[in-house]
């Protein structure tokens, strides 16, 4: 096992730590190509001049982008709108409740702490199909009809834990001295919260809200159990899968993709720029 004879010093050793100097970068590029193949496919086929199903390539057209809502009485757009409404409402509720829990968990000591941590962890460790079937069994037992409200109730449930995890990290890195200073300056508890704590937590809360919206928007399994006849975008895709997805679904998915990509790259670039500025100062 000894590598005595090959021992080197300085930068040369750096290369030896990895799997070879060109192998790993080459693999990384291939891995990204693999990860992006279905995305490119979805995007390209949003320009396919297809009639109903969208399986074989039949020529290039902008039509699907221009007439997204003109197919099947706007079924795609209606499903999309439902997904947005559900995502927004569930995100607002989950982010509010989750942020409150995150603050309490970091700032206060109480006996039930480990039980509460378990209660927050379990929804993330339960397969979606179990969460979906459980809620559906519950709604059935209580006699609640399934509609958009039951979807929102379900989505809020599985988003809370993710919000808590995301915001908690931010609260933990927050210096309590800043809030103390606010109190020393005669700020009332609500003034201290809205003027000091909340602005400092905003990046974490925004990240949690985006994650929550993304989880809700893309959820299919839990939705399928609790949606009744209400359509959401993933549900629309699932139902049309048997007869080949119309290109309009690819248009919506591509538009959402581009929007999210711009949003995330913008956030990353501005963060990198800020880090650079801070590094210069320091």
């Amino acid at each position, binding site marked *: 096992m000894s590598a005595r004879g090959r021992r080197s010093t300085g930068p040369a050793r750096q290369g030896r730590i990895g799997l070879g100097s060109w192998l790993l970068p080459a693999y990384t590029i291939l891995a990204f190509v693999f*990860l992006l193949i*279905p*995305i490119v496919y979805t995007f390209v086929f949003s320009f396919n001049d297809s009639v109903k199903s969208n399986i074989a390539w039949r020529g290039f057209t902008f039509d699907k982008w221009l007439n997204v809502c003109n197919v099947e009485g706007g079924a795609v757009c209606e499903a999309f709108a439902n997904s947005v409404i559900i995502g927004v409402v569930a995100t607002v509720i989950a982010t509010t409740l989750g942020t409150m829990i995150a603050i309490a968990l970091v700032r206060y000591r109480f006996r039930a702490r480990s039980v509460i941590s378990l209660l927050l962890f379990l929804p993330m460790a339960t397969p979606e*199909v179990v969460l979906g079937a459980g809620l559906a069994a*519950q709604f059935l037992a209580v006699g609640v009809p399934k509609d958009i409200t039951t979807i929102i109730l379900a989505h809020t449930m599985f988003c809370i834990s993710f919000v808590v995890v995301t915001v908690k990290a931010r609260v933990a890195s927050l210096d309590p001295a800043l809030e103390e200073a606010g109190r020393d300056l005669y700020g009332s508890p609500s003034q201290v919260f809205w003027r000091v704590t909340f602005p400092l937590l905003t990046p974490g809360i925004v990240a949690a809200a985006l994650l929550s919206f993304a989880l809700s928007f893309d959820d*299919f399994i839990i939705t399928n159990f609790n949606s009744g006849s209400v359509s959401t975008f993933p549900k629309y895709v699932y139902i049309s899968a048997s007869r080949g997805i119309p290109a309009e679904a690819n248009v919506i998915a591509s538009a959402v993709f581009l929007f999210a990509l711009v949003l995330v790259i913008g956030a990353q670039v501005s963060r990198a720029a800020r880090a650079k500025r801070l590094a210069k100062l320091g």
Partner: protein
Amino acid sequence: MAFAAFATAEAQPQAPRKSSRIALFLLLPGILYLVLFFLTPLVSLLLTSLQAPLEYGDIGQYQYAFNWQNYVDVMTAYWPHILRSFGYALAATVFALLFSYPLAYFIGVKARRWPLLQSLMLVLVIAPFFISFLLRTLAWKQILSDESFVITSLKALSLLGPDAHFTGTPFAVIFGLTYNFIPFMTLPLYTALERLDLRYLEAGSDLYANPFTVFRKITIPLSMPGIVAGTLLTFIPAAGDYVNASRDFLGGPDTQMMGNVIEANFLVLLNYPAAAALSIILMAAILVLVGVYVKRSGTEDLL
């Protein structure tokens, strides 16, 4: 991202105060919500799994009973699906780990010198999340279907037999599961590797360990929290997934998993007790497996 949080050691809260009415006010609404819409449904599921059909009832009408026979029935009827779920999920987890580790290593260790490149690569890792996972899976189905360019060329080159199919096979389902859960594996691995102190690796090679030994004895143990978090985040959803194995997606009649059976029983056959019993079995098996796994890997404090 929340995925990373699984692998992140919790920062020590500074000077936590004793519990107070404020803490109660902050906790109560959210906790009540989870009790009402997470815990109670699990109890409902358990009670449903013990129901028996109403004597003169229609399809879908049941009454509360202690009908443990439901469990025996679903185990007898669906044991292949149960085994398949865990087998496929395990295979997908292993493939995702093998695929993700070098990728996460490059992003977390090699790309440290270029923060902008590192951030952009992280965006690329989560990029698949920006497209509905159903459409991603359908895209693979079409790319790998019998008439597709890929499969016809492979057949033309005689790399595949003339009768070879991809979609509808267990391989396709495992492929889909692996693809869909790769980001869940890569991100926690990245978080763990990003914090890896390279001086340990240098110390290892100074002590005459060859690169392979350094990797096995230093890199892997130090990235263990990421490995555990990533495998759990892949295995759990993969075991319950029912999209990849669906007939309209990458699966076929012989690849149905527990998720598919639960969906069919609950939403189509209206056999609620069977669906509920299968759900409880799925959840119990996962809890046991995860408990054993976390204990054996020595990372209990992660949870």
